[in-house]
Protein backbone atom coordinates (compact mmCIF):
# COMPACT_ATOMS: atom_id res chain seq x y z
CA UNK A 1 0.00 0.00 0.00
CA UNK A 2 2.66 2.46 1.10
CA UNK A 3 4.87 1.33 -1.74
CA UNK A 4 2.10 1.94 -4.25
CA UNK A 5 1.69 5.43 -2.92
CA UNK A 6 5.41 6.15 -3.15
CA UNK A 7 5.50 4.81 -6.67
CA UNK A 8 2.55 6.95 -7.65
CA UNK A 9 4.24 9.99 -6.15
CA UNK A 10 7.47 9.29 -8.00
CA UNK A 11 5.53 8.91 -11.23
CA UNK A 12 3.79 12.26 -10.71
CA UNK A 13 7.09 13.94 -9.94
CA UNK A 14 8.65 12.49 -13.05
CA UNK A 15 5.73 13.74 -15.12
CA UNK A 16 5.97 17.18 -13.60
CA UNK A 17 9.69 17.25 -14.28
CA UNK A 18 9.33 16.24 -17.90
CA UNK A 19 6.57 18.81 -18.32
CA UNK A 20 8.77 21.50 -16.80
CA UNK A 21 11.57 20.59 -19.17
CA UNK A 22 9.42 21.03 -22.24
CA UNK A 23 7.61 24.15 -21.01
CA UNK A 24 9.09 27.52 -21.84
CA UNK A 25 9.77 29.68 -18.81
CA UNK A 26 7.55 32.50 -17.68
CA UNK A 27 8.69 35.84 -16.32
CA UNK A 28 11.91 35.51 -14.32
CA UNK A 29 10.57 38.24 -12.00
CA UNK A 30 6.76 38.09 -12.25
CA UNK A 31 6.19 41.13 -10.03
CA UNK A 32 8.34 43.67 -11.80
CA UNK A 33 8.17 42.30 -15.35
CA UNK A 34 4.39 42.04 -15.08
CA UNK A 35 4.24 45.62 -13.84
CA UNK A 36 6.47 46.90 -16.65
CA UNK A 37 4.41 45.20 -19.35
CA UNK A 38 1.17 46.47 -17.80
CA UNK A 39 2.50 50.02 -17.66
CA UNK A 40 3.46 49.78 -21.34
CA UNK A 41 -0.09 48.62 -22.14
CA UNK A 42 -1.55 51.38 -19.97
CA UNK A 43 0.53 53.97 -21.80
CA UNK A 44 -0.36 52.43 -25.17
CA UNK A 45 -4.12 52.73 -24.52
CA UNK A 46 -3.69 56.16 -22.91
CA UNK A 47 -1.89 57.54 -25.96
CA UNK A 48 -3.48 55.70 -28.90
CA UNK A 49 -1.42 55.09 -31.99
CA UNK A 50 1.87 56.03 -30.39
CA UNK A 51 4.51 53.32 -30.51
CA UNK A 52 6.39 52.39 -27.40
CA UNK A 53 9.12 49.85 -26.75
CA UNK A 54 8.22 46.48 -25.25
CA UNK A 55 11.24 44.47 -24.20
CA UNK A 56 10.90 40.89 -23.02
CA UNK A 57 13.20 37.93 -22.55
CA UNK A 58 10.40 35.39 -22.97
CA UNK A 59 10.90 32.59 -25.50
CA UNK A 60 7.41 31.13 -25.85
CA UNK A 61 6.45 28.34 -28.26
CA UNK A 62 5.78 29.68 -31.79
CA UNK A 63 3.59 31.08 -33.19
CA UNK A 64 3.05 32.80 -29.84
CA UNK A 65 5.42 35.76 -30.12
CA UNK A 66 7.46 36.97 -27.14
CA UNK A 67 5.40 40.19 -27.04
CA UNK A 68 2.04 38.33 -27.17
CA UNK A 69 3.28 36.09 -24.38
CA UNK A 70 4.42 39.07 -22.30
CA UNK A 71 1.02 40.77 -22.50
CA UNK A 72 -0.74 37.48 -21.79
CA UNK A 73 1.34 36.80 -18.69
CA UNK A 74 0.85 40.37 -17.47
CA UNK A 75 -2.89 40.63 -17.99
CA UNK A 76 -4.66 37.27 -17.99
CA UNK A 77 -5.34 34.72 -15.29
CA UNK A 78 -7.97 32.28 -14.08
CA UNK A 79 -10.59 35.06 -14.08
CA UNK A 80 -10.23 35.86 -17.80
CA UNK A 81 -11.49 33.52 -20.54
CA UNK A 82 -9.05 33.63 -23.46
CA UNK A 83 -9.64 32.89 -27.13
CA UNK A 84 -6.79 31.84 -29.42
CA UNK A 85 -6.86 32.25 -33.19
CA UNK A 86 -6.39 29.26 -35.50
CA UNK A 87 -2.57 29.28 -35.77
CA UNK A 88 -2.21 29.53 -31.98
CA UNK A 89 -4.78 26.80 -31.41
CA UNK A 90 -3.04 24.56 -33.92
CA UNK A 91 0.06 24.39 -31.71
CA UNK A 92 -0.71 22.50 -28.47
CA UNK A 93 2.43 23.86 -26.80
CA UNK A 94 0.88 27.35 -26.92
CA UNK A 95 -2.18 26.28 -24.92
CA UNK A 96 0.06 24.35 -22.51
CA UNK A 97 2.27 27.40 -22.01
CA UNK A 98 -0.68 29.73 -21.36
CA UNK A 99 -2.50 27.26 -19.12
CA UNK A 100 0.58 26.65 -17.01
CA UNK A 101 1.68 30.24 -16.65
CA UNK A 102 -1.68 31.99 -16.38
CA UNK A 103 -4.30 29.40 -15.42
CA UNK A 104 -6.68 31.12 -17.85
CA UNK A 105 -9.58 29.10 -19.25
CA UNK A 106 -9.24 28.80 -23.03
CA UNK A 107 -12.62 29.16 -24.75
CA UNK A 108 -13.76 28.09 -28.22
CA UNK A 109 -16.39 30.79 -28.70
CA UNK A 110 -14.84 34.21 -29.39
CA UNK A 111 -17.84 36.00 -27.86
CA UNK A 112 -17.05 34.47 -24.47
CA UNK A 113 -13.50 35.78 -24.37
CA UNK A 114 -12.23 38.65 -22.26
CA UNK A 115 -8.97 38.52 -24.21
CA UNK A 116 -8.24 37.24 -27.70
CA UNK A 117 -4.70 36.47 -28.81
CA UNK A 118 -4.25 36.76 -32.53
CA UNK A 119 -1.11 35.59 -34.30
CA UNK A 120 -2.52 35.98 -37.81
CA UNK A 121 -4.14 39.42 -37.78
CA UNK A 122 -4.90 39.43 -41.54
CA UNK A 123 -7.36 36.62 -40.89
CA UNK A 124 -8.71 37.98 -37.59
CA UNK A 125 -12.39 36.98 -37.26
CA UNK A 126 -14.98 39.71 -37.71
CA UNK A 127 -14.87 42.17 -34.80
CA UNK A 128 -18.57 41.51 -34.34
CA UNK A 129 -17.71 37.94 -33.31
CA UNK A 130 -16.28 39.32 -30.06
CA UNK A 131 -18.26 40.85 -27.20
CA UNK A 132 -18.45 44.65 -27.17
CA UNK A 133 -19.98 44.86 -23.67
CA UNK A 134 -23.49 46.06 -22.87
CA UNK A 135 -24.87 49.59 -22.50
CA UNK A 136 -24.96 49.11 -18.71
CA UNK A 137 -21.53 47.42 -18.60
CA UNK A 138 -19.47 48.56 -21.58
CA UNK A 139 -16.37 47.39 -19.70
CA UNK A 140 -17.50 43.76 -20.11
CA UNK A 141 -15.94 43.78 -23.56
CA UNK A 142 -13.09 41.91 -25.21
CA UNK A 143 -9.53 43.15 -25.57
CA UNK A 144 -7.81 41.90 -28.74
CA UNK A 145 -4.05 41.50 -28.77
CA UNK A 146 -2.75 41.26 -32.33
CA UNK A 147 0.77 40.26 -33.29
CA UNK A 148 1.65 42.21 -36.42
CA UNK A 149 4.92 42.34 -38.35
CA UNK A 150 5.30 46.09 -38.42
CA UNK A 151 3.92 49.08 -36.56
CA UNK A 152 4.23 52.64 -37.79
CA UNK A 153 3.22 56.05 -36.55
CA UNK A 154 4.25 57.84 -39.72
CA UNK A 155 2.18 58.14 -42.84
CA UNK A 156 -0.71 55.85 -41.95
CA UNK A 157 -4.34 56.81 -41.59
CA UNK A 158 -5.08 59.57 -39.10
CA UNK A 159 -6.89 59.11 -35.80
CA UNK A 160 -8.21 61.46 -33.15
CA UNK A 161 -9.89 61.20 -29.76
CA UNK A 162 -9.07 60.92 -26.07
CA UNK A 163 -5.36 60.52 -25.46
CA UNK A 164 -4.43 62.10 -28.80
CA UNK A 165 -3.24 65.67 -29.08
CA UNK A 166 -4.71 66.77 -32.39
CA UNK A 167 -4.36 63.73 -34.62
CA UNK A 168 -1.98 60.80 -34.84
CA UNK A 169 -0.98 58.64 -37.79
CA UNK A 170 -0.98 54.96 -37.15
CA UNK A 171 -0.52 51.89 -39.29
CA UNK A 172 0.11 48.21 -38.69
CA UNK A 173 0.73 45.35 -41.06
CA UNK A 174 -0.67 42.91 -41.86
CA UNK A 175 -4.28 43.80 -41.07
CA UNK A 176 -7.61 42.49 -42.40
CA UNK A 177 -8.53 43.86 -45.82
CA UNK A 178 -11.60 45.61 -44.40
CA UNK A 179 -9.65 47.05 -41.47
CA UNK A 180 -10.72 50.67 -42.02
CA UNK A 181 -14.44 49.91 -42.08
CA UNK A 182 -14.08 47.50 -39.15
CA UNK A 183 -12.47 50.15 -37.02
CA UNK A 184 -14.99 52.81 -38.05
CA UNK A 185 -17.83 50.49 -37.03
CA UNK A 186 -16.10 49.61 -33.77
CA UNK A 187 -15.68 53.26 -32.86
CA UNK A 188 -19.22 54.13 -33.94
CA UNK A 189 -20.59 51.74 -31.30
CA UNK A 190 -18.92 53.74 -28.49
CA UNK A 191 -19.24 53.36 -25.51
CA UNK A 192 -19.50 49.72 -26.57
CA UNK A 193 -16.65 48.20 -28.52
CA UNK A 194 -13.38 46.31 -28.55
CA UNK A 195 -10.04 47.63 -27.43
CA UNK A 196 -6.97 46.64 -29.43
CA UNK A 197 -3.36 46.20 -28.48
CA UNK A 198 -0.89 45.68 -31.32
CA UNK A 199 2.50 44.07 -30.77
CA UNK A 200 5.40 43.83 -33.16
CA UNK A 201 8.93 42.66 -32.38
CA UNK A 202 10.09 44.95 -29.56
CA UNK A 203 7.18 47.37 -29.67
CA UNK A 204 3.59 47.98 -28.71
CA UNK A 205 0.70 50.31 -29.60
CA UNK A 206 -2.95 50.56 -28.60
CA UNK A 207 -6.26 51.62 -30.10
CA UNK A 208 -9.08 51.89 -27.59
CA UNK A 209 -12.67 52.05 -28.88
CA UNK A 210 -12.70 55.78 -28.15
CA UNK A 211 -10.23 56.41 -31.00
CA UNK A 212 -11.94 57.95 -34.01
CA UNK A 213 -10.73 57.50 -37.58
CA UNK A 214 -10.23 60.87 -39.25
CA UNK A 215 -11.42 61.03 -42.85
CA UNK A 216 -8.36 61.67 -45.10
CA UNK A 217 -9.73 64.93 -46.55
CA UNK A 218 -10.20 66.25 -43.03
CA UNK A 219 -6.74 65.46 -41.72
CA UNK A 220 -4.33 68.39 -41.57
CA UNK A 221 -1.77 68.36 -44.39
CA UNK A 222 1.39 68.34 -42.35
Amino acid at each position, binding site marked *: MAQTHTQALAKTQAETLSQTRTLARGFADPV*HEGQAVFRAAMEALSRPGRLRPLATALVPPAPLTPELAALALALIDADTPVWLDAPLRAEPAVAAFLRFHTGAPLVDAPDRAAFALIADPARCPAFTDFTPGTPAYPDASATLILAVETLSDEGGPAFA*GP*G*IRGTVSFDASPLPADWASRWAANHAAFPLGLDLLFVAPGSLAGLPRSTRPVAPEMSPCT
Partner: protein
Amino acid sequence: MNPQGPLSVTVSAGTGYNFAYLDEGTKRMIRRAILKAIAIPGYQVPFAAREMPMPYGWGTGGVQVTAAILGAADVLKVIDQGADDTTNAVSIRRFFTATAGIATTTRTADATVIQTRHRIPEAPLAEGQVLVYQVPIPEPLRFLEPRETETRQLHALAEYGLMHVKLYEDIARHGHIATTYAYPVEVAGRYVMDPSPTPKFDNPKMDDCPALQLFGAGREKRIYAIPPYTRVRSLDFEDHPFRVQSFDRPCALCGAEGVYLDEVVLDDAGGRMFVCSDTDHCETRRVETRRDETRRADGHTGEAA
Protein backbone atom coordinates in the same frame (compact mmCIF):
# COMPACT_ATOMS: atom_id res chain seq x y z
CA MET B 1 -0.17 25.69 -10.70
CA ASN B 2 -0.15 29.41 -11.13
CA PRO B 3 3.39 30.68 -10.70
CA GLN B 4 2.22 34.28 -10.75
CA GLY B 5 0.05 33.61 -7.74
CA PRO B 6 0.84 34.24 -4.12
CA LEU B 7 3.47 31.51 -4.01
CA SER B 8 6.07 33.45 -5.97
CA VAL B 9 6.03 36.93 -4.58
CA THR B 10 8.79 39.44 -4.35
CA VAL B 11 8.75 40.16 -0.67
CA SER B 12 9.63 43.71 0.20
CA ALA B 13 12.32 44.12 2.78
CA GLY B 14 10.97 43.23 6.18
CA THR B 15 7.23 43.66 5.60
CA GLY B 16 6.34 40.07 4.73
CA TYR B 17 3.98 41.41 2.05
CA ASN B 18 4.23 41.51 -1.71
CA PHE B 19 5.71 44.55 -3.47
CA ALA B 20 3.22 47.40 -2.95
CA TYR B 21 1.17 45.20 -0.59
CA LEU B 22 -1.36 43.75 -3.04
CA ASP B 23 -0.94 40.20 -4.34
CA GLU B 24 -0.31 39.83 -8.07
CA GLY B 25 -3.78 38.43 -8.80
CA THR B 26 -5.43 41.46 -7.22
CA LYS B 27 -3.10 43.77 -9.12
CA ARG B 28 -3.98 42.11 -12.42
CA MET B 29 -7.70 42.50 -11.65
CA ILE B 30 -7.22 46.21 -10.89
CA ARG B 31 -4.96 46.66 -13.93
CA ARG B 32 -7.59 45.20 -16.24
CA ALA B 33 -10.17 47.58 -14.76
CA ILE B 34 -7.77 50.50 -15.35
CA LEU B 35 -7.32 49.56 -19.02
CA LYS B 36 -11.09 49.45 -19.56
CA ALA B 37 -11.49 52.73 -17.69
CA ILE B 38 -8.98 54.37 -20.04
CA ALA B 39 -10.78 52.96 -23.07
CA ILE B 40 -14.15 54.34 -21.89
CA PRO B 41 -13.28 57.78 -20.50
CA GLY B 42 -15.44 58.82 -17.55
CA TYR B 43 -17.25 55.48 -17.23
CA GLN B 44 -17.08 53.90 -13.78
CA VAL B 45 -15.67 50.37 -14.06
CA PRO B 46 -16.76 48.09 -11.19
CA PHE B 47 -13.83 46.34 -9.53
CA ALA B 48 -13.48 43.98 -6.59
CA ALA B 49 -11.85 46.41 -4.18
CA ARG B 50 -10.02 44.65 -1.39
CA GLU B 51 -9.98 45.45 2.26
CA MET B 52 -6.88 47.49 2.81
CA PRO B 53 -4.96 48.04 6.02
CA MET B 54 -6.36 51.58 6.22
CA PRO B 55 -10.03 52.47 6.63
CA TYR B 56 -12.55 52.79 3.83
CA GLY B 57 -13.05 56.48 3.11
CA TRP B 58 -9.39 57.21 3.82
CA GLY B 59 -8.10 56.62 0.33
CA THR B 60 -8.34 52.84 -0.13
CA GLY B 61 -9.42 53.26 -3.77
CA GLY B 62 -6.53 55.56 -4.61
CA VAL B 63 -4.13 53.33 -2.69
CA GLN B 64 -5.23 50.26 -4.66
CA VAL B 65 -4.86 52.05 -7.99
CA THR B 66 -1.43 53.36 -6.99
CA ALA B 67 -0.35 49.92 -5.75
CA ALA B 68 -1.46 48.35 -9.03
CA ILE B 69 0.46 50.73 -11.29
CA LEU B 70 3.55 51.38 -9.17
CA GLY B 71 6.93 50.05 -10.29
CA ALA B 72 10.31 50.04 -8.62
CA ALA B 73 11.49 53.05 -10.65
CA ASP B 74 8.51 55.26 -9.84
CA VAL B 75 8.77 58.38 -7.73
CA LEU B 76 5.65 58.91 -5.65
CA LYS B 77 4.12 62.10 -4.29
CA VAL B 78 1.10 62.01 -1.99
CA ILE B 79 -0.99 65.07 -1.18
CA ASP B 80 -4.11 65.72 0.85
CA GLN B 81 -5.74 69.14 0.56
CA GLY B 82 -2.83 70.06 -1.68
CA ALA B 83 -0.31 69.48 1.11
CA ASP B 84 2.35 66.78 1.39
CA ASP B 85 2.52 66.99 5.17
CA THR B 86 -1.13 66.48 6.13
CA THR B 87 -1.41 63.41 8.35
CA ASN B 88 -3.21 61.13 5.91
CA ALA B 89 -0.82 62.03 3.09
CA VAL B 90 2.09 61.22 5.40
CA SER B 91 0.45 57.94 6.36
CA ILE B 92 -0.15 56.82 2.74
CA ARG B 93 3.35 57.85 1.65
CA ARG B 94 4.79 55.81 4.51
CA PHE B 95 2.66 52.83 3.51
CA PHE B 96 4.26 52.76 0.07
CA THR B 97 7.74 53.46 1.36
CA ALA B 98 7.35 50.48 3.68
CA THR B 99 5.68 48.05 1.27
CA ALA B 100 7.26 49.04 -2.06
CA GLY B 101 10.49 50.70 -0.97
CA ILE B 102 10.09 53.27 -3.72
CA ALA B 103 11.38 56.82 -3.85
CA THR B 104 9.04 59.60 -2.73
CA THR B 105 9.10 63.30 -3.33
CA THR B 106 7.14 66.38 -2.42
CA ARG B 107 8.08 68.09 -5.70
CA THR B 108 5.30 67.87 -8.25
CA ALA B 109 7.70 68.08 -11.18
CA ASP B 110 9.82 65.16 -9.92
CA ALA B 111 6.95 62.72 -9.34
CA THR B 112 5.90 60.03 -11.82
CA VAL B 113 2.84 59.07 -9.77
CA ILE B 114 0.90 61.58 -7.65
CA GLN B 115 -1.85 60.36 -5.37
CA THR B 116 -4.19 63.12 -4.29
CA ARG B 117 -7.18 63.86 -2.15
CA HIS B 118 -9.21 67.01 -2.88
CA ARG B 119 -6.70 68.96 -5.03
CA ILE B 120 -4.92 69.02 -8.35
CA PRO B 121 -1.40 70.47 -8.05
CA GLU B 122 -0.97 74.06 -9.23
CA ALA B 123 2.11 73.26 -11.33
CA PRO B 124 1.01 71.96 -14.75
CA LEU B 125 1.35 68.18 -15.06
CA ALA B 126 3.39 66.61 -17.81
CA GLU B 127 3.28 63.59 -20.08
CA GLY B 128 4.61 60.58 -18.27
CA GLN B 129 2.93 61.57 -15.00
CA VAL B 130 -0.10 59.81 -13.56
CA LEU B 131 -2.47 61.58 -11.17
CA VAL B 132 -4.40 59.17 -8.93
CA TYR B 133 -7.46 60.60 -7.18
CA GLN B 134 -8.99 59.20 -4.01
CA VAL B 135 -12.74 59.18 -4.54
CA PRO B 136 -15.40 58.87 -1.81
CA ILE B 137 -18.60 58.80 -3.92
CA PRO B 138 -17.84 58.13 -7.58
CA GLU B 139 -21.42 58.43 -8.80
CA PRO B 140 -22.18 62.03 -9.87
CA LEU B 141 -25.91 61.27 -9.80
CA ARG B 142 -25.88 59.60 -6.36
CA PHE B 143 -27.38 62.50 -4.43
CA LEU B 144 -30.10 62.87 -7.02
CA GLU B 145 -30.84 59.14 -7.29
CA PRO B 146 -29.57 56.85 -4.52
CA ARG B 147 -30.15 53.58 -6.38
CA GLU B 148 -27.27 52.01 -8.28
CA THR B 149 -29.70 50.12 -10.55
CA GLU B 150 -31.23 53.46 -11.60
CA THR B 151 -28.04 55.47 -12.04
CA ARG B 152 -26.51 52.68 -14.12
CA GLN B 153 -29.44 52.97 -16.54
CA LEU B 154 -29.14 56.75 -16.64
CA HIS B 155 -25.49 56.46 -17.67
CA ALA B 156 -26.32 53.76 -20.23
CA LEU B 157 -28.87 56.07 -21.81
CA ALA B 158 -26.68 59.17 -21.37
CA GLU B 159 -29.71 60.63 -19.61
CA TYR B 160 -28.28 63.51 -17.60
CA GLY B 161 -31.35 65.73 -17.40
CA LEU B 162 -31.52 65.24 -13.61
CA MET B 163 -28.12 66.86 -13.18
CA HIS B 164 -29.02 69.84 -15.33
CA VAL B 165 -32.27 70.29 -13.41
CA LYS B 166 -30.35 70.27 -10.13
CA LEU B 167 -27.86 72.87 -11.33
CA TYR B 168 -30.68 74.97 -12.75
CA GLU B 169 -32.58 74.86 -9.47
CA ASP B 170 -29.47 76.35 -7.86
CA ILE B 171 -29.60 79.22 -10.30
CA ALA B 172 -33.31 79.78 -9.68
CA ARG B 173 -32.79 79.85 -5.93
CA HIS B 174 -29.42 81.53 -5.52
CA GLY B 175 -28.86 83.33 -8.80
CA HIS B 176 -25.89 81.08 -9.57
CA ILE B 177 -24.82 77.46 -9.35
CA ALA B 178 -24.22 76.66 -5.67
CA THR B 179 -21.95 73.62 -6.20
CA THR B 180 -18.47 74.55 -5.09
CA TYR B 181 -16.66 71.22 -5.12
CA ALA B 182 -17.19 67.80 -6.72
CA TYR B 183 -18.56 69.88 -9.58
CA PRO B 184 -19.77 67.47 -12.31
CA VAL B 185 -17.95 67.28 -15.63
CA GLU B 186 -18.67 65.71 -18.99
CA VAL B 187 -15.79 63.63 -20.29
CA ALA B 188 -15.04 63.30 -24.01
CA GLY B 189 -18.59 64.30 -24.85
CA ARG B 190 -20.23 61.25 -23.28
CA TYR B 191 -20.12 60.33 -19.59
CA VAL B 192 -20.92 62.73 -16.79
CA MET B 193 -18.31 62.15 -14.10
CA ASP B 194 -17.62 63.16 -10.53
CA PRO B 195 -14.16 64.75 -10.35
CA SER B 196 -13.96 63.72 -6.64
CA PRO B 197 -14.35 66.49 -4.05
CA THR B 198 -11.79 68.83 -5.56
CA PRO B 199 -12.89 72.47 -5.51
CA LYS B 200 -14.31 73.49 -8.87
CA PHE B 201 -11.32 75.82 -9.05
CA ASP B 202 -9.37 72.73 -10.17
CA ASN B 203 -11.83 71.55 -12.84
CA PRO B 204 -10.18 73.40 -15.74
CA LYS B 205 -6.89 71.60 -14.96
CA MET B 206 -8.53 68.29 -15.88
CA ASP B 207 -9.26 69.44 -19.42
CA ASP B 208 -6.71 68.54 -22.10
CA CYS B 209 -4.24 67.54 -19.38
CA PRO B 210 -1.01 65.92 -20.67
CA ALA B 211 -0.98 63.48 -17.72
CA LEU B 212 -3.17 60.40 -17.30
CA GLN B 213 -5.80 60.83 -14.56
CA LEU B 214 -7.03 57.75 -12.69
CA PHE B 215 -9.78 57.70 -10.07
CA GLY B 216 -10.17 55.00 -7.40
CA ALA B 217 -13.17 54.53 -5.11
CA GLY B 218 -12.49 51.63 -2.72
CA ARG B 219 -15.64 51.52 -0.62
CA GLU B 220 -17.85 51.99 -3.68
CA LYS B 221 -15.64 49.65 -5.75
CA ARG B 222 -15.25 51.76 -8.87
CA ILE B 223 -12.32 52.87 -11.05
CA TYR B 224 -12.54 55.50 -13.78
CA ALA B 225 -10.14 57.49 -15.90
CA ILE B 226 -9.48 60.52 -18.03
CA PRO B 227 -6.86 59.78 -20.68
CA PRO B 228 -4.35 62.52 -21.50
CA TYR B 229 -5.52 65.27 -23.88
CA THR B 230 -9.19 64.60 -23.30
CA ARG B 231 -11.97 67.17 -23.37
CA VAL B 232 -13.34 67.66 -19.87
CA ARG B 233 -16.18 70.17 -19.72
CA SER B 234 -17.74 71.42 -16.48
CA LEU B 235 -21.52 71.33 -16.88
CA ASP B 236 -23.06 74.77 -17.29
CA PHE B 237 -25.62 76.81 -19.19
CA GLU B 238 -25.23 79.39 -21.95
CA ASP B 239 -26.60 82.15 -19.75
CA HIS B 240 -24.72 80.86 -16.69
CA PRO B 241 -21.28 79.78 -17.87
CA PHE B 242 -19.02 77.78 -15.54
CA ARG B 243 -16.84 80.00 -13.36
CA VAL B 244 -14.15 79.13 -10.84
CA GLN B 245 -13.55 80.66 -7.44
CA SER B 246 -11.20 83.61 -7.33
CA PHE B 247 -9.42 85.08 -4.37
CA ASP B 248 -9.16 88.83 -3.92
CA ARG B 249 -5.64 88.64 -2.51
CA PRO B 250 -2.40 86.73 -3.18
CA CYS B 251 -0.86 84.03 -0.98
CA ALA B 252 0.47 85.71 2.16
CA LEU B 253 3.62 83.54 2.08
CA CYS B 254 4.71 83.42 -1.56
CA GLY B 255 2.56 86.11 -3.16
CA ALA B 256 1.09 83.74 -5.75
CA GLU B 257 -2.08 84.84 -7.50
CA GLY B 258 -4.54 82.69 -9.37
CA VAL B 259 -3.97 79.75 -7.04
CA TYR B 260 -6.25 78.12 -4.49
CA LEU B 261 -5.80 79.49 -0.97
CA ASP B 262 -6.47 78.11 2.50
CA GLU B 263 -7.88 80.50 5.06
CA VAL B 264 -5.91 80.31 8.29
CA VAL B 265 -7.40 81.62 11.52
CA LEU B 266 -4.67 83.49 13.40
CA ASP B 267 -6.39 84.54 16.61
CA ASP B 268 -9.79 84.88 18.20
CA ALA B 269 -10.12 88.52 17.16
CA GLY B 270 -11.03 87.82 13.53
CA GLY B 271 -7.42 87.70 12.35
CA ARG B 272 -7.13 85.70 9.12
CA MET B 273 -4.54 85.04 6.49
CA PHE B 274 -4.71 83.26 3.15
CA VAL B 275 -1.95 80.89 2.06
CA CYS B 276 -1.40 78.45 -0.82
CA SER B 277 -3.18 75.13 -0.37
CA ASP B 278 -0.50 73.54 -2.61
CA THR B 279 2.46 73.46 -0.22
CA ASP B 280 5.00 72.39 -2.85
CA HIS B 281 3.98 75.21 -5.15
CA CYS B 282 4.31 77.69 -2.29
CA GLU B 283 7.70 76.41 -1.18
CA THR B 284 9.08 76.30 -4.70
CA ARG B 285 8.10 79.94 -5.21
CA ARG B 286 9.59 81.01 -1.91
CA VAL B 287 12.88 79.25 -2.65
CA GLU B 288 13.00 80.95 -6.04
CA THR B 289 12.30 84.32 -4.45
CA ARG B 290 15.05 83.78 -1.88
CA ARG B 291 17.47 82.73 -4.61
CA ASP B 292 16.65 85.84 -6.60
CA GLU B 293 17.15 87.99 -3.53
CA THR B 294 20.49 86.34 -2.78
CA ARG B 295 21.59 86.84 -6.34
CA ARG B 296 20.61 90.47 -6.20
CA ALA B 297 22.50 90.86 -2.93
CA ASP B 298 25.54 89.21 -4.55
CA GLY B 299 25.32 91.59 -7.48
CA HIS B 300 24.35 88.90 -10.02
CA THR B 301 21.10 90.56 -10.98
CA GLY B 302 22.13 90.93 -14.59
CA GLU B 303 23.05 87.27 -15.01
CA ALA B 304 19.90 86.01 -13.34
CA ALA B 305 17.79 87.86 -15.88
